[in-house]
């Protein structure tokens, strides 16, 4: 049983310019007695999310939409457990799997096979767990003998095939996506589509950020519209998408 509860979450990113970044300057500040008082640190703060409250439960397929810079990716990162809210409370129950950066940690100098083990380990699988699935991963990627060649010999498409094959081996309870993945040539796309649908249906909660109306209407049963870091609307796909897209 998975659940996500956000209660009045706020995310502020402090932008450290050279005035506060270096310890030397801070010491000098203290020693000379200057620069006292609030907001005198020369620090700019970017408020990425404000007043974010919602509850997600099993079966929710949530789409995030909004203009560039609205806070979708930041919200996905919060959901992914990478950032903790600056204020407010976020409670996430369930195993999280993110398809946001499927190439993370891949080492171009080593072989495809070694990279499968690396990606697997980063996804939380032990070596033996990866070993059980490795043939399945290699078969899916259709890379054949290339899997024992260094990754730098691959084309971008082959690289993405490998990344996709190994990253989609997990079946998380909470699935996070930033746009639908479209990987490889036409014949591979069929397999990608099937695999992604499989992942989505086995996930208890899905959160996907997208700019595509068709995708959101097809995949989601709830849409959250973000604007300037705040939730503008939260409701059914039909209502929100007609409001957002205007038709």
């Amino acid at each position, binding site marked *: 049983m998975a659940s996500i509860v956000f209660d009045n979450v706020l995310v502020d*990113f*402090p932008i*450290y310019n050279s005035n506060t*970044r*270096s*310890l*030397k300057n*801070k010491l000098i500040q203290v020693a000379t007695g200057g620069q006292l008082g609030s907001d005198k640190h020369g620090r700019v703060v970017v408020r990425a999310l404000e007043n974010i409250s919602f509850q997600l439960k099993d079966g929710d397929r949530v789409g995030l939409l909004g203009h560039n810079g609205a806070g979708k990716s930041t919200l996905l*990162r919060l959901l*992914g*457990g*990478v*950032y*903790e809210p*600056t204020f407010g409370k976020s409670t996430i129950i369930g195993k*999280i799997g*993110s398809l*946001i*950066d499927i190439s*993370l*940690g891949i*080492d171009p*100098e*080593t072989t495809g096979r070694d990279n499968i*083990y*690396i990606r697997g*380990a*980063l996804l*939380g699988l*032990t*070596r033996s767990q990866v070993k059980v699935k490795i043939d399945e991963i290699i078969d899916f990627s259709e890379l054949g003998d290339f899997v024992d060649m260094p990754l730098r010999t691959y084309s971008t498409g082959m690289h993405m095939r490998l990344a996709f094959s190994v990253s989609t081996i997990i079946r998380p309870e909470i699935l996070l996506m930033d746009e639908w993945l479209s990987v490889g040539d036409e014949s591979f796309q069929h397999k990608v589509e099937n695999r992604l649908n499989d992942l989505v249906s086995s996930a208890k909660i899905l959160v996907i950020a997208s700019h595509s109306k068709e995708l959101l209407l097809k995949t989601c049963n709830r849409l959250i519209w973000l604007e300037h870091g705040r939730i503008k609307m939260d409701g059914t796909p039909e209502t929100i998408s007609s409001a957002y897209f205007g038709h």
Partner: protein
Amino acid sequence: MCLKSLKISYTDISNSLKQFHLAALLGWQDVRQRYRRSVLGPFWLTVSMGVMIGTIGIVFGQIFQSPMQDFLPFLSIGLVLWNFISNTLTEGCVGFISSEAIIKQLPIPLFIHILRLIWRNIIIMTHNIVIFPIVLIIYHKEISWIPLISIPGFFLLLLNLIWMVLFLSVLCARYRDLPQIVTSLLLVMFYLTPIMWMPSLLPQQNTNVKLLILNPFFHLMEIVKAPLLGNLPSILNWKVSIMLGVFGWLVTMFMYGHYKRRIAYWL
């Protein structure tokens, strides 16, 4: 602040230890990357260490008029150990900074990044330390059971290094000048610690004795170095190392637990 911080640190560290295989894999990967497509690979470290020991030994041995059979083993284990300590602490400063990409994408326990760099440096040290038995054999040093004491000594050193690295990683993620300061301090400590010079050569004055006793690195190195050279570390060496470990870990656990949630924002 107190108990909650401890709980946060403890949870993160224990989760990281459960995923140690990830840290070990990444650490080993780091070493392999450096020596890709080279014939000797990491053993180049052994060769370069050997050359350095030989050269320094010959020159400084003559300057200090120390007999080679005492000075060279002393120097070689000192240099290998100091190399390990200094590299671990220097890389430790950028422990979180260098893993920025992963930290901002995957919710892996942060301590794993610390374990990764420790493991990487241990691997490199084991390649470097090959020089030491060779030096012992060349100078016909006898073997006894005493060197075995260096094993618990090494674990105590490691325990201390780990809290130092964690402490520095957190602090340096926020204050980007600190790595520079640490590098400079380490350079100074290299000269103040008996690595290139034997303590017996120092005139037996009060200030010199204090110089040794107040130097934490002297104690931390002695618990590993002394047994390997056939001597037992003093009770003071053990006391200081243990107390340093206990207080260091206490302070670091509080500090880490308190600031852990801010680290991703600092990067």
